[in-house]
């Protein structure tokens, strides 16, 4: 019989404004990880970033494909110090955003590649974005953190779930 998987490892809903969402002590028993940030709201316009295993070195890069209002766009960056999860417009305080982050072979001894889907709409514009992220490190992933640019807090009600697949 096939093995059941896709297991919520940890889930939380912010009770108050918080600068950083962190998952630590991530177990190694899965093939992939998935992080879902839901109802993402922040006090002012910002971008949302991430880090792996606390690494703030220039070890991240991404390639992005996104639609903003009526235009299709693409961008990329290398040697970043964080995961750049959304390229154009990040979360706002008025309408919630949604993000999923799929992390493949997170315990392998290869560099880690990830896929991100971001969606937001504020009834006069919005962004839908797909991007691929690279973390140039061969260590197993044991912690993940998410934060906004300019030290903007996530607002209460933002949800964060870590899944093991």
């Amino acid at each position: 019989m096939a093995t059941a998987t896709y297991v919520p490892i940890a889930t939380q809903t912010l009770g108050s404004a918080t600068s950083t969402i962190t998952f630590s002590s991530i177990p190694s028993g899965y093939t992939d990880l998935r992080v879902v940030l839901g109802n993402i709201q922040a006090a002012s316009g910002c971008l949302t970033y991430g880090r792996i295993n606390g690494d703030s070195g220039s070890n991240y890069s991404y390639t992005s494909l996104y639609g903003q209002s009526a235009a299709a766009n693409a961008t990329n960056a290398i040697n970043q110090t964080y995961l750049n999860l959304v390229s154009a417009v990040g979360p706002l305080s008025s309408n919630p955003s949604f993000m999923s982050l799929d992390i493949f072979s997170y315990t392998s001894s290869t560099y880690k590649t990830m896929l991100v889907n971001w969606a937001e709409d504020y009834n006069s514009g919005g962004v839908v974005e797909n991007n691929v992220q690279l973390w140039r490190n061969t260590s197993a992933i044991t912690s993940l953190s998410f934060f906004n640019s300019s030290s903007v807090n996530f607002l209460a009600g933002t949800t964060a779930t870590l899944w093991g697949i």
Partner: protein
Amino acid sequence: MSLTPGIIASSLTGHLITNNFFLISQQTPSSATSITFSSIPNTYKSLQLRYSSTISGSAGYRINFNGDSTNGHYAQHWFYSAGSSASAGSSANTYTTGTVGLGVSTYQNVGIVDIVDYANTSKNKTLKWFAGGNNNTSGGDIELDSGLWISTSAINSLTFSGGTFTGTFSLYGVS
């Protein structure tokens, strides 16, 4: 419960398990030119294939179903970027379906392929493919693709081809 930095991820327990996503088979090829999942059971609503793999000699990641490589039996659309501009396109009446990007060299390419209603015998089969790769250069490969297999047969096997693969390929059933 409010969120605090440093959640101990392993501290939560089993009542959250949903049990509707099942690992059917996993392969970890090394320098394989094709990867086949065969004898796929017809008991799920949809399939999801997830992979993390290097590729060389690439024509891109290709998928054929049930061993069918007949010209005219496949079609695809894509929304794609290699780093600096977005493009979209399509092709019809082809031998296979797959990614338009060739994938990056050196590092892992990753993808999620969703195949809905794969066991239905009264309609053609559609897939959604989300794929990407990044080499820490100004290029890369990020794309969202659709694929069509023009057949009403239930899918019972699936074959990857297009390059030489080393990595992990996992097939899941979703009930």
